[in-house]
């Protein structure tokens, strides 16, 4: 098969993290090529470089025999590269044809365009009425608008970023038929996903990224989903030794906790049951967007749960807000540092009051003791080695890692009995991450129960006693980490749920 796009040694580093490290692979003509990897593996950065949104630091691309270095997306489009983004950029108040015209360099006359849209939609089996207002379309139909916008430019390479994440199963079938038809016509497709079964069904070749590196290429049809999961998760994974010691009493328990999705892009929680004992670390893994944020908000008290679903030391705390739960000893740390765990424009002293107000006695008779608050902030800064000019610095002026140390340290220093934390070391450099993990282990050693939600499997294996995975808002039963092997984790994570369903149906 002829090669359409050859990627050679692409490298892109951001401060503190190498997003892509010497990535090379080829996409053949008329091939559906899967790009596979966990969140943060560098998939988005790579496609952004191909689409001209990001300039590589090193490496080169060759498109159909000619050097290819797009400076901006319009260069890429002119070279025949089109992209359908995960989140649509459409104007709800305009109709389909107007939206398509807005994305084109030289849109034809409205009537011609409407005719072209009808033609393309019929040819590729993507039913769509060009006169309908986008606001009335479903997510799948909106995606068709984006796809048709790309197809009208007759692309040689179509990049699709997690296209099925917003589709119903029926819509997925339609999309796959369209993609197969495009392949038959010789269009190449770069298909980004972490749904393994989907890739096995659709793609000819797969490149797997892990921590910015190309860790392997395979032919999805010839390998199992488990083998791909292993590549994705990494064979460097070592099963940790069983942790010694009896655990104490159950401190936090949820009983079939269900909550509707908070918004259009949220995930509902579906009968989540877990329990954590004193001195134990429960690791919760799973691909992003499967209910991690929602679980944290339900446990922190930001969203109240139905009565009788969350128990702290045997007491029903489901209807208590964050203040009540904090008073009891249940503390939490959200994933989003700026805007959720901390207020960006407020100083570290002010941010210390955010959760420390009552447990640290920073407020007396309704009035804030700023001296004491500053002392608490300084204590966090000192104990967790937060690099900052001082507690008067605005939170947004800190680097991600330093702010993370601050917000995690702020909770740990309040001696929680139960600490729930989402992505404690996300975007944090290795040294800081190690320090945060050690602090979590120390806290557990002192008898606290800890729930760590993370997408970093290595991290979870390193610090957890037991492991469970979230998938579409459902939590798998927790298993002792010592009993786990790579195959079981692969099953519990991403592909597991899909495979189980397929099994039952079959």
């Amino acid at each position, binding site marked *: 098969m002829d090669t359409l796009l050859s990627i050679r040694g692409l490298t892109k580093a951001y401060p503190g993290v190498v997003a892509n490290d010497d990535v090379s692979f080829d996409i053949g003509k008329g091939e559906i090529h899967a790009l596979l990897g966990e969140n943060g593996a560098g998939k988005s950065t790579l496609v952004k470089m191909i689409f001209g949104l990001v300039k590589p630091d090193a490496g080169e691309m060759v498109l159909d025999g000619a050097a290819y270095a797009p*400076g901006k997306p319009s260069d890429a489009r002119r070279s025949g590269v089109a992209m359908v983004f995960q989140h649509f950029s459409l104007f709800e108040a305009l109709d389909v044809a107007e939206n398509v015209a807005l994305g084109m360099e030289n849109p034809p006359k409205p009537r011609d365009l409407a005719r072209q849209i009808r033609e393309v939609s019929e040819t590729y089996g993507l039913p769509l009425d060009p006169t309908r207002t986008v606001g009335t379309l479903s997510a799948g139909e909106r995606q068709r608008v984006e796809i048709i916008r790309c197809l009208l430019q007759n692309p040689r390479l179509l990049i699709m970023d997690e296209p099925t994440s917003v589709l119903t199963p029926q819509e997925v079938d339609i999309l796959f038929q369209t993609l197969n038809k495009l392949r038959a016509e010789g269009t190449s497709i770069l298909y980004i996903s972490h749904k393994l079964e989907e890739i096995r069904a659709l793609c000819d070749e797969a490149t797997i990224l892990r921590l910015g590196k190309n860790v392997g290429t395979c032919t999805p049809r010839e390998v199992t989903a488990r083998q791909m999961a292993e590549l994705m998760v990494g064979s460097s994974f070592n099963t940790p030794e069983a942790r010694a010691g009896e655990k104490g009493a159950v401190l936090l328990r949820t009983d079939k906790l269900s909550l509707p999705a908070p918004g259009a892009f949220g995930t509902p929680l579906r009968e989540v049951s877990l329990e954590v004992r004193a001195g134990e670390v429960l690791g919760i893994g799973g691909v992003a967007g499967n209910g991690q944020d929602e679980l944290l908000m339900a446990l922190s008290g930001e969203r109240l749960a139905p009565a009788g679903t969350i128990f702290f030391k045997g007491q029903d705390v489901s209807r208590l807000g964050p203040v009540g739960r904090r008073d009891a000893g249940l503390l939490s740390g*959200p994933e989003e540092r700026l*805007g959720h765990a*901390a207020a960006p424009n407020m100083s570290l002293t*002010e941010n210390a009051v955010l*959760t420390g107000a009552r447990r640290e006695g920073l407020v007396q008779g309704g009035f*804030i003791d*700023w001296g004491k608050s500053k002392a608490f902030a300084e204590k966090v800064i000192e104990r967790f080695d937060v690099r900052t000019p001082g507690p008067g610095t605005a939170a947004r002026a800190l680097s991600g890692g330093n702010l993370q140390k601050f917000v995690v340290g702020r909770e740990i220093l309040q001696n929680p009995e139960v600490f729930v934390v989402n992505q404690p070391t996300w975007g944090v450099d290795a040294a800081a991450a190690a320090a945060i993990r050690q602090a979590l282990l120390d806290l557990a050693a002192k008898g606290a129960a800890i729930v760590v939600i993370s997408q970093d499997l290595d991290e979870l294996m390193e610090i957890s006693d037991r492991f469970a995975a979230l998938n579409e808002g459902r939590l798998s039963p927790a298993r002792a980490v010592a009993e786990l092997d790579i195959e079981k984790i692969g099953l519990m994570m991403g592909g597991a749920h899909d495979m189980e369903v397929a099994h039952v149906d079959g």
Partner: protein
Amino acid sequence: MIRLEKRPQPSRLWTVVTPLIAVVLTMVVGGIMFALLGKPPLEAIRTIFWDPLFHPQFAGYSRPQLLVKAGPLILIAIGLSIGFKAGIWNIGAEGQYIMGAVTGAAVGLAFYPSESVLLFPLMVVAGALGGWAWAMIPAVLKTRFGTNEILVSLMLVYVAENILASASASWLRSPEGMGFPGSRNFKQWPAVHNDELIANTGLHWGVVAALIAVIAAYVLMARHIQGYNIRLTGEAPRAARFSGVSPARIVFLCLGISGALAGAAGLFEVTGPAGQITIDFNSGYGFTAIIVAFLGRLNPVGILLAGLLMALTYIGGELAQLMLGLPGASIQLFQGMLLFFLLATDVFTNYRIRFAKGELA
């Protein structure tokens, strides 16, 4: 190419300097406008900013007006600024001001002609409650049904104006007014007349209340946990929820405070400088206070200064119309420029300008 670069922290210096730059730019551009209108620019500026306080002939009359006008502006703006800090946009202070005046006046007139010393404090409380109740309408609608408080509070201004009209024409009309619209004149009822506390200063109880409000707001926002919660809600709503702040409570608190202060301002006005409930009792203080709140950077001390400055341009503007024949619209334009330049220069608090060669990021 000129580029705006976000500062790591808001600049303290620029926070203080931008209002001054805005005033200077207003003077310059306003002067050009006056010159284009064929009026001497320097004299016009002087008439607006200097003469109300120091003109040998007019100052005696206009100086007390400074506090009379600044008092309600500051009192209302303090209340609004608290809500604005939380991102709650009460645009209907004018309506709350009217409802405070009507409610307070109605309570007082119910006891006419009592000479009790308790009556005036009772009326102040009634006025504050009237404004509070009017502000509770957008608060309830926002928290229960998710309506936009900007629209609801604004539309309620027009409802309040109609209630004011009906009050002055019928149910609060003075029985001794020979059938003319308008309530009894509080200036002729010493027990409740909100007179100048010191002659020829313009200092009445409303001005005292405004000063107390400045101090109270400062303490609330700088030291009290509720003030902290209000700021946190405005800065980062999700962080506020994480902290345990109930968004609905903040809505009620902020709209309640701003409504009560606007209502009290209305009561002080109707029993003092205005004297009676009339159809055209309200004169736009509730709207101008929005400008004052922003001109003062939502800071209590800033609002105190901004209220005085705004009052000065009002009095000076009237003086300029009188003495130089400047059109009234040009004075309004002049005041509008002040807000415009303030918002424009405000960018430099959070951003700095970089002159750089055009390069794609």
